[in-house]
């Protein structure tokens, strides 16, 4: 434990105010780097094949993230699957960057099972045009992941065979992983089963959080028809 020499400082110079510091910069030689993500040859092949559709490549912790033009994503994936052997889609998901332009991002995590390679493609979508071609024709595994992405961010996938919500019911009208969606949910947006067999649907699952007081379970249920005396 470092020994602090406090006696040399007068009390008035002791910094008790918070000094904002620049966050840590990227770590050199990340101990968790994997050999599978060293895919520079694949990226150069991609750049050769699709010169203008391939954007910058970001390297962090040894992982390569390739920016792809959203309109060419299917072509790029077909090329990666047929020519480069990336035969397995491990993951796909959306990201809300909460920026003015190109607000949404979708990442594709592709794996080459035979040659042990992993690459990540990223496309960006603007809020104005929230749709992109589906990947289900190339990787059938993208089906549920794209549905999840639609469910959470409202990004639709053109040509998807089954564009329903994944987790939330169809009756829900919001997209919960967008940054503006409140953490407590929207009252009344998701009806829950009635408290009694013939009762009304429960419109607000968190009434106390939204300011109203629900009856406790031990309290008498208020009946509207007064013939019970």
């Amino acid at each position, binding site marked *: *434990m470092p020994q602090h020499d406090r006696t040399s400082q007068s009390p008035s110079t002791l910094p008790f105010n918070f000094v904002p510091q620049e*966050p*840590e*910069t*990227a*770590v050199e030689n*990340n*101990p*968790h780097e*994997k*050999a*599978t*993500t060293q895919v520079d040859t694949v990226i150069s092949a991609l750049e050769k094949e699709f010169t203008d559709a391939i954007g910058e490549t*970001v390297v*962090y*912790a040894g*992982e390569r*993230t390739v920016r792809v033009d959203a309109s060419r994503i299917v072509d790029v994936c077909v090329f990666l699957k047929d020519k480069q052997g990336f*035969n*397995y*889609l*491990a*993951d796909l*998901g959306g*990201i*809300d960057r909460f920026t003015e332009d190109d607000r949404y991002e979708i*990442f594709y*995590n592709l794996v080459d*099972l035979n040659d*042990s390679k*992993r690459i*990540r493609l990223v496309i960006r979508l603007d809020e104005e045009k929230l749709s992109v071609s589906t990947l289900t024709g190339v*990787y*059938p*595994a*993208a*089906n*549920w992941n794209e549905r*999840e992405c639609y469910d*959470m961010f409202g990004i639709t996938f053109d040509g998807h065979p*089954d564009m*329903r*919500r*994944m*987790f*939330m*019911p*169809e*009756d829900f009208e919001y997209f*919960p*992983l967008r940054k503006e*969606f409140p*953490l407590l949910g929207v009252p009344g947006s998701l*009806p829950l*089963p009635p408290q009694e067999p013939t009762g009304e*649907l429960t419109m607000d699952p968190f009434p106390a959080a939204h300011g109203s007081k629900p009856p406790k379970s031990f309290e008498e249920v208020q009946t509207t028809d007064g013939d019970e005396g």
Partner: protein
Amino acid sequence: MSIINDTDFKETLKFWPRHNEAIYRRLESKHSWIEKTSSGDGSPVDALEQEMVLNIGPQHPATHGVLRCVVKLDGETIKKCVVDIGYLHRGIEKIAENKSYQEFMPYTDRMDYLSPYSNNVAWCLAVEKLAGIEIPDRAQWIRMMMSEVARISSHLLWMGVGLMDAGAVSVFLWTFQAREDIYAIFDEVAGARLTVSHSRIGGVATDINDVGFNLIKDFAEKFPASLAGWEKLLNRNRIWIDRNIGIGYMSAEDVVAAGMTGPNLRGSGIAHDIRRFEPYLKYDEVDFNIPIRTEGDALARYFVRLDEMKESIKIIRQCLEKLETIQGPVRVEDAKRAYPSKNDVYYSMEGLIHDFMYTDTGVSPPKGAAAYHAIEAPKGELGFYLQSDGTGTPWRAKMNSPSFSNLQALETMMEGAQMGDMVIMIGTIDPVLGEADK
């Protein structure tokens, strides 16, 4: 024109009408709908002459949680199946975006609640990759050993419940006896039986004491004998084999296309295991095999999981050996990267400040960093894709859950199968809905 598209569902579907209507439309029933009880002229509809739409779940004991399968039946044959999940959706990813990295770790226990330790390790490794933290050797060995114990625990539940689905209740009791031993281990090592939360960012919470160490040692000694006993009972059991052979067949191309992971992938002859694919912790330093079968049916997956338990015991033994020699801290001693030890917190001012700061802000990976780290959980590839905005909470945490990937294939697997095999197929996929529903 199918009748289902003309049906007015307003009266029949009172709860979440649009959701249920979408599912029924997805089924594309060509003929009739069993809820329609009378034909046009008033005479009752003969159910046997119609295709039947049957809802299995979400509240059904054989669906291993709140899985809902809406199937269209022609007699005993499943014509089409629509799997509806989300009944356990808690918005885990939204929660992660609003918690600090360390705060979110206990939530991972609740995802795959049959192997909580693996989830803790997966989350912590992902954060450590994002922040570039290397953890001490001893912590790595402890994590690895406990993850393998968790794998056995998960496979034991799959086995017991799978056999109970097939009608053999006694094996369920035996596997739960062994799981009880595992729970005793977790209780001793982590302080909790189910929601262990033992892993910390930068190491593990506590070192293994002698009692826990001996419990694991005993378990590793005794367990192969009980496993051999169950194998003796099951491997040549006429009923068990006939219920499983050829059921839920997926070819090697199918499983890759459908994105299945874990034992489901290896049961179809695809040699893919994250422990070999991108070795994490100390998996490149231990000797173990990846069991593979090529048949691609439920029986193949049964053998794969059975053999995986034996390999896990092999890994646990090597970990026990290593842990006897490798001593040292179980957490990083950098206060910006891991919690200080309780000794520091209670007896030094700096320790207390560090503890407070770490709880308040915690580890803050560089702004704009993004990393994906996957582990081989009992169910398959469990990975987290994290994006940092430079603060103590992730900007985006995407969870790649193996049960979700596996369940996707259930729809194709069910098509054309017999109704009675449905529970076997759900069992052989081994889904945990806490994880699939996020």
